[in-house]
């Protein structure tokens, strides 16, 4: 550790930190553009200029490694003058199109212009244009507008160092320099939209989100991506019950500053219309929308009849899409109270997903986030040919069950495959929880409308056994309930549960008995992760308004060593 004094305040920082990080640690925000904690140091935006004692010239603080006893003047007149100068240079050619720029509101150039800019422009010449390189998609998800580029090279370094695909490069030279893809290539890689995240200005924007919502209207809620079992921390950004986008939430233990394109654009699915009321099929097979009382009574009656005859004729499917709390309630109700033995879940092999954590790739192979959580509460993982109840039934070795209770109608892609559904349908009674209509839900006798990820809270266990909490972003439509509430109310009908429990109540009841949950605290930093970033474009804004005075930055951000070597 090195002791560094910034504007009179002494702080301790790791030896690998640089002067910019030391300033931040001391609570002094030095504006910057090209610096990013997970990318190499290039020191070329020249925004983070400070004075350092013993060095005659002003220094770009990100390029100076800390030394024990270093004294930094970050707010001196000379340092401010240098930053004002850089700001002026950045603004002389930047278009004044903030009103129509999608980055406005989370643009570092805007923010820093407020801090370090001049109130007037001295530029009397015509501004630079980059004709032919405006509003052009450079890949499936990223739209480039090079007149706005400030040449910080974050996107170039992102593609070189994080995705290791190197699609982007500087083109031209001097004042004409801009960023583009190599001839004949497009910006298409697993994490391509993160290039737009790291862009501090509106030069790269995400195609799917462009012009959908002004960012200052968005509410941000902590969530966890449910695309695979890696469990990337994300922030759901929403307004008026519509999720507009998903952005990464910094988590050095999982996904650093990134999310993959697949996970990012799954947020569309959260807005799909679907069941808003329970559906029960009448004796003639006609589907009828009803209320919760009738629907749950119908479920209770069907289960009651089957259990009286033979509990082994009941098959219950949990899901790797449900939270551990929901799976635990399912197990409590069916296995412990109703003595149902056939409690299983099945998860699809997903296409391989990958995520960059530090310098290593981590891989996701399943199409659901929480198979570890389902296993932890004692729900059996079912595979083809493993002799599980579901396998025996699907392979027609066992007769169809009397009741098939599926707690997640989208547990597999095959739930929209008519052949697979007709197999499941051969059960005498088919009960599903569903949010969106698919072949399986339409075949079911009872459909219980359940909120999707954006409308509920709980915990997932990721591929490394890390327990992570996600919060409810939006209130589901009026009659839709969360899986948790559905199970509580159903349990009430069998005298098993209280209906007033919340996810955190369930969490505290189950944590003693569920492996991996002992000793966890619902509100701990480990479970909650970092707050949604106030602006992804700034390295430290991820701590945003929630940073408490004196709180260490490094413990939460795992700042990389300033690796100035190429």
């Amino acid at each position: 550790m090195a002791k560094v004094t910034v504007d009179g305040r002494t702080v301790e920082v790791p030896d690998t930190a640089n002067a910019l990080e030391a300033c931040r640690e001391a609570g002094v925000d030095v504006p910057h553009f090209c610096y990013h904690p997970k990318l190499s140091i290039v020191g070329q935006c020249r925004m983070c200029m400070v004075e350092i004692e013993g060095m005659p010239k002003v220094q770009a603080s990100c390029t100076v490694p800390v030394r024990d006893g270093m004294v930094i003047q970050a707010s001196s007149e000379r340092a401010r003058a240098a930053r004002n100068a850089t700001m002026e240079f950045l603004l002389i050619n930047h278009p004044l199109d903030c009103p129509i720029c999608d980055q406005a509101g989370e643009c570092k150039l805007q923010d820093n212009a407020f801090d370090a800019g001049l109130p007037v422009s001295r530029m009397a010449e015509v501004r630079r244009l980059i004709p032919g390189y405006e509003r052009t998609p450079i890949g499936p998800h990223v739209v480039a507008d090079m007149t706005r580029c400030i040449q910080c090279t974050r996107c170039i370094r992102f593609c070189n160092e994080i995705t290791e695909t190197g699609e982007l490069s500087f083109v031209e030279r001097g004042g004409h320099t801009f960023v583009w893809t190599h001839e004949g290539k497009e910006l298409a890689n697993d994490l391509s939209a993160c290039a737009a995240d790291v862009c501090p200005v509106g030069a790269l924007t995400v195609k799917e989100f462009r012009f959908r919502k002004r960012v200052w209207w968005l509410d941000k809620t902590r969530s966890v991506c449910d695309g695979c079992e890696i469990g990337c921390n994300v922030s759901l950004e929403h307004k008026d019950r519509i999720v507009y986008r998903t952005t990464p939430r910094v988590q050095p233990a999982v996904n650093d500053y990134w999310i993959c394109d697949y996970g990012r654009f799954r947020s569309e699915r959260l807005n799909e219309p679907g069941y808003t009321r329970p559906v029960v099929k009448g004796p003639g097979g006609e589907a009828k929308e009803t209320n919760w009382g009738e629907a749950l009574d119908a479920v209770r009656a069907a289960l009651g009849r089957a259990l009286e005859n033979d509990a082994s004729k009941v098959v219950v499917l949990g899901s790797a899409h449900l939270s551990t709390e929901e799976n635990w309630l399912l197990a409590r109700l069916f296995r412990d109270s109703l003595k149902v033995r056939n409690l299983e879940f099945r998860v699809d092999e997903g296409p391989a997903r990958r995520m960059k954590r530090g310098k290593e790739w981590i891989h996701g192979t399943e199409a659901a986030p929480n198979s570890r959580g389902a296993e932890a509460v004692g729900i059996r993982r079912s595979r083809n040919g493993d002799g599980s109840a579901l396998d025996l039934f699907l392979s027609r070795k066992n007769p169809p069950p009397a009741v098939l209770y599926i707690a997640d109608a989208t547990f597999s892609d095959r739930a929209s495959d008519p052949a697979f559904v007709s197999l499941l349908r051969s059960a005498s009674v088919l009960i599903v929880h569903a949010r969106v209509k698919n072949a399986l839900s339409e075949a079911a006798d009872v459909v219980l409308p359940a909120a999707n990820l954006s409308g509920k809270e709980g915990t997932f266990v990721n591929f490394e056994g890390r327990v992570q909490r996600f919060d409810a972003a939006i209130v589901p439509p009026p009659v839709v309930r969360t899986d948790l509430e559905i199970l509580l109310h159903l349990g009430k009908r069998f005298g098993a549960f209280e209906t007033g429990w919340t996810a955190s109540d369930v969490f505290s009841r189950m944590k003693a008995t569920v492996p991996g949950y002992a000793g966890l605290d619902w509100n701990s930093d480990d479970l909650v992760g970092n707050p949604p970033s106030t602006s992804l474009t700034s390295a430290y804004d991820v701590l945003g308004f929630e940073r408490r005075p004196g709180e260490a930055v490094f413990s939460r951000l795992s700042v990389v060593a300033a690796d100035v070597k190429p």
Partner: protein
Amino acid sequence: MAGLDPVPPVLTARVGTPGSRKLEGYVADGGYASWRKVLAGSSTGEWTPAKVTEMVKASGLRGRGGAGFPCGMKWTFVPPKEKRGGKPVYLLCNADESEPGTFKDRVLIEEDPHQVLEGMMLASFALDVKHAYVYIRGEMWKGAAVLNEAVAEAEAAGLLGKNVLGSGVDLDITVHRGGGAYICGEETALIESLEGKRGHPRIKPPFPAVWGVWGCPTVVNNVETLACVKHVVDRGADWFKGIGRNDRNTGPKLYCISGHVEKPGVYEAPIGIPWERLLEMAGGVRGGRKLKAVIPGGASAPMLTAAEIAGVPMDFDGLAAAKSMFGSAAIIVMDEMTDMAKAVTNISKFFAHESCGQCTPCREGTPWLNKMLKRIVAGGGKKADVEMLLSVANQMANGMTICVFADAAVAPVLSGVAKFREEFEAYVAKAGAPEYGLAAPGEVSAKVAGRTAAGMHD
């Protein structure tokens, strides 16, 4: 000290003689004697790398590329073998001569390539280099061809390659042509460019002596410096030191004189000769006109007025004392007919074109200065513009950028405006006058800058 007396040419002795490019002629003139001597002595211990380095140090040879850093001291910054972790050392000969007004290295390379190669060989011996590179400016295709031929001749004669002349020393020399960017003459940009990347200067430290090309210790020396090394080993440090103004400025020097003189060209003279004698060598100001200003060290050196340069010794310390710099000894002479505002505009165009685009102040500032100057000389200037030139130039320099390109780019503007302010103000005073055929300053601005907007390049 008699160091300033005329001496027979050393570096340019063979220039212009028949067969000066050929190995045959070079050997006949006593070439490669030092290389053979050093190699032969290396097995007996008579010659060691340390001895060569010591000679160069003792000679007081300062880098001829522009900064004037003592050459021998630069060599000693390379970590000793046990601290290099098995990494090789590279020697790069900087032949990316692109400073406006500089054309001395081209003469050496095109006319006497073996002299440069022998200097590289001796430097490589001193630095334990197994592979040396010549990074030659892309436009100097002729020089590259000459050098390649010379390297091939030397290889054929067994002066390069594995186990040179049975001494156990290995050395290869590769000639690499640059892509034609001024900034690639900056040593770290040159290294990046040689590695196959864009020529962007690196953040220093680490310096090339520790972390250079491909992360290995690297020494970058100018063509003329390496040619001098050959003569230091040839004739000894004391002889070298005997030439020149004083102990800090030693040896023969090539001066590139261009502009308004009767006989522009490359002149060899002891370093530190007074300005007047140099001007005399070049035949004086053309047409007998009066001297107005001199840029003494390439376009990036602050210009000096006729009064300021009078009696100045033309070497590193002499020009530093006159608040300019010696640079690459590219002396651009301007007579009384020169329009200083237009001269400065022309220089600023060069720097706007050559900025690498890495650092904000330089990338944005150099075109801004150029646009402002163009507007002023086109008759669209405003009264505040002259002061603004100084203000904008000042906030680009002095540590605001990774390399010193920005400092170089603003030097002619700052010195030009400071010393010839009335000429800029005269343009501003005439702004909008009918002779420009324009109505108002604003229109000029649009018209001048419109050229930039219409295409990518002005």
